[in-house]
């Protein structure tokens, strides 16, 4: 299958590595109006305009790795030209952007559209999901996540397009918190109520650098997120409390390794006949060596295309639902009234 990558920044380069190593995929074009000379690959055509890239190559799959502002237009154009689309998260700047994409997707039911919620495919998450699904640990009672960055060198961080409201549409919640919100849904299903607080606590940026979010669903499961650009240490920690155990995913295998070695902690609630010291149960810590999340997710898309299967994971539905949560939080942040939980779900498209 012929592919093109639109947007050749950090994510575009990761996608190239995936395409280059995946049997059956061939990278035929890269589009980026700001290609860095030293980074231009010599094995495919280069374009300045995404429409030229798609018209010229006529690819089977378009990888959309652009800043958020351009995401919907590129996705829509690719779909209209008959291409399958793999789009990085977030799916645009706001709820309207993903709604626009879905409108076009619905006109092309044979085309596959997947979004880059790759955290679902990280090894510790996959392992945790399998343990939860097996049911042996009981029902999920609550879920809690912390996901944050150091912010890095201040000037670079403040100047990033990710903190330019017109381009990104939001701050750390939209950029990084979106992954954790997607994982909450991945484990617990839909949430019906959301309460969010945002602050721009430190950085000189027009978007939030901290978000605190609480969600609740019809099963009474409560989720809590702290998404932050002021943790000063790259941090990923997802905790799940279940009836018979707890699971903690900490660290995240990444290109730089800056989030620490990815691990899953499994602790069992002591049985009534066990003499384990109260409050200090036996734990198993599973360390993982290899992140194949990028490959697994693209392979999933390729399989959907080859076998004419619907995209059921990281689909436009998943993207819509998570953007509904974020939209509700941003709407709350703009209101001057008292803080009240708002209902979400089916606010977007049916």
């Amino acid at each position, binding site marked *: 299958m012929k592919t093109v990558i639109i947007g050749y920044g950090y994510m575009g380069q990761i996608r190239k590595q995936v395409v280059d190593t995946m049997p059956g995929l061939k990278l035929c074009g890269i589009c980026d109006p700001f290609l860095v000379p030293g980074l231009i690959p010599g094995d495919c055509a280069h374009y300045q305009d995404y429409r030229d890239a798609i018209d010229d190559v006529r690819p089977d799959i378009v990888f959309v790795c652009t800043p958020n502002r351009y995401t919907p237009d590129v996705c829509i154009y690719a779909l209209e030209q008959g291409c399958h689309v793999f789009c990085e998260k977030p799916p645009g700047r706001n709820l309207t952007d993903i709604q626009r994409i879905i409108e076009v997707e619905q006109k092309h039911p044979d085309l596959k559209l997947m979004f880059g919620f790759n955290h679902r495919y990280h*090894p510790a998450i996959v392992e945790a999901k399998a*343990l939860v699904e097996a049911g*042996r640990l009981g029902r999920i009672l609550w879920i809690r996540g912390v996901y944050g960055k150091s912010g890095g060198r201040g000037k670079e961080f403040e100047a990033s397009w990710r903190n330019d409201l017109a381009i990104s549409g939001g701050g750390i919640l939209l950029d990084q918190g979106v992954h954790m919100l997607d994982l909450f849904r991945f484990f617990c299903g839909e949430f019906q109520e959301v309460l969010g607080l945002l602050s721009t606590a430190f950085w000189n940026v027009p978007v939030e650098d901290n978000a605190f979010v609480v969600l609740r669903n019809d099963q009474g499961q409560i989720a809590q997120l702290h998404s932050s650009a002021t943790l000063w240490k790259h941090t990923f920690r997802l905790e799940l409390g279940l009836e018979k155990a707890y699971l903690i995913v900490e660290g995240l295998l990444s290109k730089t390794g800056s989030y620490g070695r990815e691990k899953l902690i499994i602790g069992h609630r002591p049985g009534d006949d*066990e003499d384990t010291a109260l409050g200090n149960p036996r734990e*198993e*810590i*599973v*360390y993982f060596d290899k992140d194949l999340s990028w490959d697994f997710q693209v392979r999933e898309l390729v399989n959907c295309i080859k076998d004419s299967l619907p995209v059921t994971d990281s689909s436009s539905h998943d993207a819509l639902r998570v953007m509904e949560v974020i939209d509700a939080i941003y709407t709350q942040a703009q209101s001057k009234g008292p803080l009240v939980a708002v209902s979400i779900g089916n606010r977007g498209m049916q």
Partner: protein
Amino acid sequence: MKTVVVDRDFLELEIKPYARLEEYRRLTEEDVRGRLLTAGEFTPCPCPGCRSTASRVVFEKSGMAYLECDHCRSVYVSPRPPEEALVDFYRNSRSARFWREQILPETKETRRAKVFRPRAQWVLNVLDRYRPGARLGIVVGYHNGLLVEELARQESHLFHMIVTNAIADIEFRGSELPNVTIRPTSASALPSLGPADIFLAFDIVDRCADVEALVAAAQATLAPGGLLLASTISISGFDLQVLWDRSESIYPPERLNLLSTEGLIALFERHGFETLEFSTPGVLDVEAVQRVIHKQPEAPWPRFIRYVVEKRDEDAMNGLQEYLQKYRLSSFARMVLRKPR
């Protein structure tokens, strides 16, 4: 590949009462010399890990020579007794009976809670992750009664298990577990019991006369995508490297094969297995070193090791043990291996 670290929540003493263990070792030594060394022809063998024949004798125990492989650094007994002689030893020797009738009953509940309950949990977690819906399990190796009981207790809809070791009829006498069949079976006949979803080979690689035949049998018995779960003592671990021939864990016939990490990987890769997990979740290395150094203070121990175990507190000992687990340097190794689909 992943690796697993566990808390240390028991002392060796709890599962191996020292006075009883001394007696067990004395009986074992007598049985080896009086029974095993005269039981049939001993056969030389290549390294059970990498199959190299380049090796040298590094020490001797109870009249048996331990060789170290020049290639993968595994340590193994060669020449070695035939499998039939080992089966006779485990069925009829005084030391084996002493283990079954004295030590195991005394430590049964501690072993259940500290060793076999977590092991059963781990087996079930592995199945949930890699082979949900498993229907048939094959159990090889000795002393698996508590594991099988715990599996049955923790999972009401457990897969059918066939326990195959040569003394299973003795070990499971009077025990009636649903969905468990006792069928002593030689390695060569194991494939006829398959195709199995899971093959449990705990604490058998180290004491098996023919590891090659065992792993080949596991391969042939498993269905495509089936899992081999194995545990063994490994010579790459901290206590065995430090104590070497002074280790109380190295004695025949239970420790015929002390494969190194490299030897273990070579063994399973040679038979086409994919390694999903390689962990060394042992909790007793530091305690074992501490105990032997205390018993033999005059031996030429590495100064740093002696200093740490003599002068540092329990927290430091636990931290060291956790480090060994995290970097796969404990002598208790366990693996999850998958037969290709």
